[in-house]
Structure formats: C-alpha cells, structure tokens
C-alpha cells in the first residue's frame, strides 16, 4: 500500500509547525523521517494518522483519502506505534494486544479463535509469548513498547507508521523492533532519532528542519557531514563501518561550542 502526502500544512494558532511537506512511500519501502527536536516530524506523522487536523494538504493511503475518511476505515489499513504511555487502568497483555482487533470487529462480534491466534502470533513475533497473562502496567518500558508493537501487528495493517518507537529503549530492543517491522513487508514511515539506525534500516530518508523537508534521498547519498552540520548543528565525519560495512557517523562536537 502506498502513502502519498501532498503539501501538508499544520499550524497551531499562528505557528506554522509543518509547511507544505510532501512525502511518498511506495513499493513497501521503509522510509525514515529524521530531523532535530521540534522540526515537526511528530506533528507531521500525527496529522497523517488523524490525531491532528492539518490546515491544508492531502493524505492518500492507497485510494483512501485519510483526512476525510472515517477513523475505522483508516485503522483497518494503517497501524501506528507511538511512544508508549502510562495507563491509569490496567489490562493484561493479551487484552491489550486483542484491542488491535478492534478495527475489524462489529458491535456485537466476540473474539473468535482466529483473533486469539492472531494475538498469539503477534506476541510470539515480539518475543512475549509467555507474557499473555501478565499485567501491562507491571512491564518495563521496553516490554510495554513491544506489547504496543504486538497490538499493531494484531491489527494486520497494510501500512505502518512508527512515531519514534525506540525512544528510551535498550539498544537490543531498538534493533529488535526495527528488524521485526522491516520483515513485515509493508510500507513503513518512521520518525527515528538515531541516524546510524536510520541509515541501516531505511530505504529512503526525508530530512526535516523547521517544518520543511530540506533533503531527501537514499541514506548513503544524503547523510553527508555538510547536511548533518546544517540540520543538526553537529560536526561529524562519515565513514564506512569496517565491521558492518554500513554507514558510520563519528560525532565530533556540537556546533557553536
């Protein structure tokens, strides 16, 4: 499923947070969105998944006009993993993941054995198969985030948005979550913090600064020391990692220090 974001603008009061941003995700690519804090990437994603209403612009997911469509129709195709949040009420892990089936369920429909199997498979995929009856609130941050990922998997989406899903997670779980998502073979748009991870996992990158896309392209081509200096205000050297063969970034010093 392809995502086509066309000249999206979001403003709060007089502040233009996102300015005419266009993003395309085609052919089941893993597309990354990078940029410094406050550059508008989270706002952009939220307006794609219908939490924020954009001022102008259009979002097409396949042939669904996301901004006009009702949330249920969108949620059958689009899964979102956001930053985990605390709940005032507790659920078991299984109940939590089962809620991923909500978009596919009618008013009176009960959970079928298929639903249970989907939930079980989703939990197995995130390595939490034995956690089904644990209480969600008793889990660690990394475990909670994996439960949320399992819930999104249970949604069986055809497109997935990750809104900085690996914040506060151990490196093991960061890698684990990104690998699971990458193997899904669906289109993905992800806001990521870590540039090296972005370079490793993404097929294509959009770089945002002050609400605009300032660069886009394949990671190897756009992640240059000039771009990083300009966008993130950090001096660095780019090298080829001798062990992995991937892109390496050696940060030297924050600009202006």
């Amino acid at each position: 499923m392809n995502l086509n974001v066309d000249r999206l603008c979001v403003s709060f009061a007089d502040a233009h947070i996102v300015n005419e941003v266009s993003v395309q995700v085609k052919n089941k690519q893993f597309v990354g969105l990078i940029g410094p804090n406050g550059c508008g990437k989270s706002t952009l994603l939220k307006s794609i998944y219908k939490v924020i209403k954009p001022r102008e612009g259009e979002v097409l997911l396949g042939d669904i006009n996301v901004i006009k469509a009702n949330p249920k129709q969108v949620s059958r195709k689009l899964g979102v993993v956001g930053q985990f949040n605390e709940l005032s009420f507790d659920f078991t892990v299984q109940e939590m993941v089962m809620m991923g089936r909500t978009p596919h369920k009618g008013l009176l429909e009960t959970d079928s054995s298929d639903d249970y199997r989907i939930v079980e498979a989703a939990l197995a995929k995130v390595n939490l198969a034995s956690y089904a009856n644990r209480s969600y609130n008793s889990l660690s941050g990394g475990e909670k985030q994996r439960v949320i990922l399992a819930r999104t998997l249970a949604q069986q989406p055809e497109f997935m948005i990750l809104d900085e899903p690996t914040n506060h997670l151990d490196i093991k779980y960061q890698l684990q979550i990104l690998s699971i998502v990458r193997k899904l073979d669906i289109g993905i748009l992800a806001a990521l913090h870590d540039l090296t991870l972005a370079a490793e996992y993404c097929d294509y990158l959009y770089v945002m600064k002050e609400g605009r896309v300032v660069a886009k392209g394949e990671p190897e081509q756009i992640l240059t020391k000039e771009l990083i200096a300009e966008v993130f205000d950090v001096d660095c050297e780019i090298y080829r990692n001798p062990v992995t063969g991937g892109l390496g970034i050696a940060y030297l010093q924050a600009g202006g220090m």
Partner: protein
Amino acid sequence: MQTATLTGNEPKKSLIHTRSGFLAMTGVLLIIMLLSAGAAVSFGQVEIPISQSYRILLHQITGIQIGDPADLASGSFVDIIWKIRLPRVLLAMFIGAGLTLCGTIMQAAVQNPLADPYILGISSGASLGATFAILVGFGSIGFLGQTGIAFWAFAGAVGASLLVLMLASSGGKMTSVKLVLAGMVINALCTAFANFIVYFANNAEGIKTVTFWTMGSLAAASWDKLPLISIVIVLSVAFFLLQSRVLNTMLLGDEAAVTLGINLSVYRRAYLVVSALITGVMVASCGMIGFVGLIIPHMVRGLVGSDHRRLLPTSVLCGAIFLIWTDVIARTIVPNVELPIGIITALIGAPLFMYMLVKKGYAFGGKS
C-alpha cells in the same frame, strides 16, 4: 488466516477469564441478586421470617402456594412485603446497578479511576435543582408549579453536565483533565448557589427536606415510580454492553483510540450525556447516594480486570446487591429510626476506598 485447532500452548487463564467461567460467575451473581432482593424484604421494623417472605413473594408473583394459604393471601405481612418493602428493594437494586454503571462509564470517559457523578458536578447540579424546587419553587407560575422536585433535580443534572461538557470542550479538544477541572468548577458553583438558597430560606421544614434529600433515601419508593427507572437503567445497561469495545479503547487514551479507529471525542460526549440522563433520573427518585459508583467498579476491576465486556455486567450486578443490603442496614441498624442511605454508603465506601489506596498503591496519574 487459516483455521487450525487451538493448541495446548494457549496461556493458562484463571477461571473467571474463560468464557464459561465468566458466564457461570455472572449467573451466580444474578441468582445472589434475586435471592438478596427476596431476603431483604424480611428486614425492617417488623421482622418477617425469610422463609415466609419467599413464600409470599412466590405466591404473589407466580400464584404457587406453599404452606398455609391463609398467610399468603392476606394479613399485614403481605401488605408490608408487597406494597412497602418490595418496591423499595427493587428500587435499591436498580439504583445500585445504575450508580455503578454511571461510575464505570464516567471513569472510562475521563480516563480517571476517581470519576463519578459527584466529581463531574452532575450530582451537585441535581442537588441545586432540588433545593431550588423545595425552597423557592414555582408555586405561582402556572404549570411550573405542578412540576415536582424530581423534575428539577433531573433538569439540574442535565444542565450541569451540559455546562461541564461545554466548559471542557472550550478552546478545542476535550481532554480528561479539562473535564475533571470543569466538573470541579461546576460543582463549586452549584453548591454555592444551593447554599445561598438554603441560607436565605425562611423555611425550617424545607431545609430539613433538602438536608434529608441530599443524604439520599429510598424511603419514597413505590410501585408507580419503578417503571421509569427500571426501563431507563435496563436500556442503558444494554446500550453500554454493546459499547464495550469502545469503552476499552477509551482507557488507552485519545491518540491510541484514534489509531484503532475510534474517535473518542464523539463517543465521550455521547456517553457523558447518557450518564447524565441516568444520574438525573436516579437523583430525582432517591436523592444523592455517594461512593457506590466509585467503590464498586474499583473492587470489581481487581477481580475481573478492566475489560468492559466482563467489568460491566459484573459491576452492575455487584452494585445492585451492594445497595440492596446497604438499604437493609439503613433500615435496621438503629431501632425505630431509618438512616439516610447516603450516610451508610459513605461509611462503608470511604474506608474500603482507603484500604484499596493503601493496598494497591494507586497513583492516579498513571503508574500503579
């Protein structure tokens, strides 16, 4: 997904989490509720043996005679049970169910385990309406003079909740924090107006009525009051049972709910309006009875979890049973005096609530 047989590696569940276990528990609670209702008519200033109460009820309802036909058809026991106590016990049952339902729904709607009709200011609106009707009234203004306390309590409840909703959704999105704050504001405002009226009222009898009314009482129960309240509560329980999935996603917060296809602000508004209607009907018929909507859902969550498909039926039944027996206590604890039931629910509810706070270490912002 291909169908395949469920294998044995499904995680083990506790008994009440299996479908049959849960149905059995619901059935048992239903039977306990009905037996409680039957037993509760025995208690009061005139003690009637429980076996005789059951026989009288059975005879009145189905016509089956067990034992001496003479004490079944006539006598003061029959009148006491059938005309006075049974409507009251049934009212207690419905009000208990309704209060618990409202508490559960409001807690989900504002994502705060502390919410109930009191916190959201709905009861104070009802109270203001009733105070106004009792102490000021519309005696000289034609048809308005005909309307009773009940109507004004109801109008107050609905008015207060509309104000709370308007206040909470001013400036864009309605959030749970804004709702709770708006509830506090309306609560303070209504209480102030009500106190103002009481302070200047030159009507000792009226003030006594107001006081009694704000403490809650089921003493005014009668058969002709039951149809409205029972229909409203049965229908709203059925309505919210159908909404269980939405209620579940509500507990996840607005953002997660949208990604699961549910636009909470629409549902939240609808649920709060329905709860206000139920609260209005209940407060109108029995005054303010606190703590039931707060305490019962809390306890039942500890037993069956937060999934509303299990939580709602269980807590509604437990609420009904709780209020039936609380009313028995109110009628019998002090000989020849009937205590307002609101006092008893608070006396039972507050320590229970304290115990739960200490035991579970609830932190209301989130972590527990």
